[in-house]
């Protein structure tokens, strides 16, 4: 028997540590974090209400990360999600406060359409210029920050209608925060989209091998447009939730959130080289960041330490993935 035939026969080996690592690493990190903080601060941290709070606090990061996931899936990146959050928040709030629009219409225009539009512009520019998404979205970040300041006159927009804050930022039965519901629905739709639709499959194909995707008849540019539109939409929704939770739109909101979103996606095991990753793990990645921030708070460390911890975690997660993940096989 020839060597290659032997190779084909023997490939189904026993499950290795790599296989387990790939499946459960993200959840394992989350459990580890919870256990560590549970031991350090058993009373305040290990309570049901604190867990709900953590999830609520993580909702914005998770929403951003769900969108960011698609940019990274295409071996790209979206650095404009934090600034889209700020602009859509300010616009949505202004439409309600200054123009007296009903919240539903303001959300449709200022959140959904605006998010898709900005994401679409990102995708369009990437396709037309052929420049890396890094450059385009970095430029977009700066443009949107400036736009947000102009639109808001550099002042927070307050006086958001109470029905808006209740509907988007409130709690059902005074227990379950609505942002969590929004996150669950969004993540659910994306899980369905990535696993069951042809477009979702195509995104993995384009991310895995852009050339082969083109040869296989996939319109690569359309899918870049789609991915960045999704990213923009998610960022817009995160902006909406942010305004509802604070009952005001801060023009400086979302600063540094790009890093949070990227961190959640990467800690969630998504390959930076494209083509590999799953939405559920990204959600867990967002929760990990929430647990770290909440836990360090409880332990009494300042937010400066939280920033450091997140940096360490990003590097650690990718390093571990390099050694144990499937990426090192190729």
């Amino acid at each position, binding site marked *: 028997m*020839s*060597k*290659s*035939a032997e*190779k*084909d*026969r023997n*490939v*189904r080996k026993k499950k290795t540590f790599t296989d387990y690592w790939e499946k459960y690493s993200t959840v394992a990190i989350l459990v580890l974090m919870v256990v560590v903080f549970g031991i350090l601060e058993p009373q305040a941290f290990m309570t049901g209400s604190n867990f709900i709070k953590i999830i609520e606090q993580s909702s914005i990061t998770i929403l951003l990360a769900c969108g960011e996931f698609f940019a990274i899936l295409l071996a790209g990146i979206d650095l404009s999600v934090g600034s889209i959050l700020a602009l859509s928040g300010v616009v949505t709030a202004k439409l309600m406060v200054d123009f007296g629009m009903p919240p539903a219409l303001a959300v449709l225009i200022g959140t959904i359409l605006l998010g898709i539009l900005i994401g679409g512009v990102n995708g369009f520019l990437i396709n037309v210029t052929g420049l890396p998404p890094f450059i385009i979205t970095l430029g977009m970040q700066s443009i949107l920050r400036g736009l947000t300041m102009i639109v808001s006159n550099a002042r927070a927009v307050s006086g958001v209608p109470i029905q808006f804050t209740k509907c988007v930022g409130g709690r059902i039965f005074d227990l379950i925060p609505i942002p969590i519901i929004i996150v669950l629905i969004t993540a659910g739709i994306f899980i369905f989209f990535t*696993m*069951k*639709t*042809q*477009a*979702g*499959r*195509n995104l*993995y*194909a384009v*991310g*895995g*091998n852009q*050339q*082969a*995707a*083109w*040869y*296989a*008849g*996939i*319109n690569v540019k*359309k899918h870049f447009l*789609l991915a960045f539109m999704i990213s923009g939409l998610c960022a817009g929704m995160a902006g909406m939730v942010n305004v509802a939770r604070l009952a005001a739109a801060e023009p400086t909101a979302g600063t540094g959130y790009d890093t949070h979103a990227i961190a959640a996606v990467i800690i969630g095991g998504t*390959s930076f080289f*494209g*083509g*590999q990753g799953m939405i559920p793990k990204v959600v867990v990645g967002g929760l990990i960041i929430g647990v770290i921030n909440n836990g360090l708070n409880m332990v009494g460390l300042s937010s400066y330490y939280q920033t450091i911890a997140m940096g360490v975690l990003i590097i650690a997660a990718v390093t571990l993935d390099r050694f144990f993940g*499937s990426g090192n*096989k*190729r």
Partner: protein
Amino acid sequence: MEALVQMNHITKRFPGVVALQDITLDIMPGEVHVLLGENGAGKSTLMKILSGVYQPDEGEVIIGGKTYAKLTPREAKENGIAIIYQELSVINELSIMENVFLGALPARKKGGIGVVNYTQMREKARTLLDSVELKRDPGETVANLNISEKQMVEIAKTLALDAKVIVMDEPTSSLSEVEAGRLFKQIRQLKKEGKGIVYISHKLDEIMAIGDRVSVLKDGQYVGTYPVKESTVDGLVTLMVGRELKNKYQGGRTAGEAGEVIFEVKNLTRKDHTVQNASFFLRKGEVLGFSGLIGAGRSELMCAIYGISPIKEGEILLNGRKLHIRNPYDALKQGIGLVSENRRETGFFGNFTIKRNISIAKQLMQTKMGGLLGMIHVKEEQEIAEKAQKEMSIKCASLEQNITELSGGNQQKVILGKWLSAGVKLVIFDEPTKGIDVGTKSEIYKLMQDLAQKGIGVIVVSSEMPELLSVCDRIIVMNRGHIKGEFSIEEATEEKLMKAAIE
């Protein structure tokens, strides 16, 4: 007269293949020594050994009286061996003089720190540029030069290193006739200065014009060294290709049953003119081969048909219907599949399982808006993959395996299965057995013949002439972007194919 370089009994093995076997070669001062052989005959490997990039498994290289069993790149350079590659290695962003003195810029001490001495560099470069008759300012950026001028910069570079042996790998492949004439003038000048030139080329007319001696390699074996004056074009062609077909495919042909024309290309010219005015047709039941040298326009023609590269003019007809192809999606939708030359880069998705690699094309064709609207049907996906696995006899433990775990031959079958599942009527194979072991090769040949018998069009582009001769019913030869000949399998021989390819 003592040889500048003497290579004795060089043998080089790569895993599974003997690239060079017992090659002996000498290079005399003041001669142009031509190295001749087919694609893959071992010319490049031999030159890589001369420049120290590869170390031979057996044999020795003697330079200037000193014997090296394992020559290193540094030793080769110090001994005055320079190579000008086909893909020129000048750095476009730097100036001419910086390129000429790259790695050894003239320097002077300034306060104990070495700084580049631009005045001295400019003067030295001026002299060198004069000797290669390049009328450009030494400070000019290389990006502004044309190919011929860049080549002169490369030659000036070898002069700056005081090279004794200069290897030129297909130096005229992208030059016009006038520019080639200029290069030859320069080569004659180098000869007068006593340099040894190793000249690699397929163009026999050139070799006749410039060469002194010619050494022929064939499948890694040394055929012989002959004075150019006593050689003829026909004689050299026979020496290059005259071999028995060792790996001949024994499957039996479909010839004679060929029916009506199912695929036709009329007067196709590419926008970039790498293919000009190409016309050919394919009959039902036959396997059509494309032969020619690398860069003759074969892959370029197939890419144009498949919608990867734009067409300036020309018609493509499949089963009598005129096709409108602007991209691979159009090609696939209208029934053409391309098994591309480079599996890893353009053929499969390394992040997908075997199943997903097979099903993607069929599913894409079933959905709307180019795949943006439509669902994955899990059950159907499984069925598509299982059917392809059976038909192609893909050897794998599970369809859920990652495709990168398969051997090259099985990967190729997966790619073929992808197109056939999508219901293509024509499959174009571009170098289908590159890097595939002998056993799987004949399986792939068998698949091709089966397809042809089922009435699916099969086109094969290959640089291996024995492969074409054993699997095809008809062979078309391309040469410099044009279709230069067509042979039925009965009349085709390696000599005829090679002659049409290099004329």
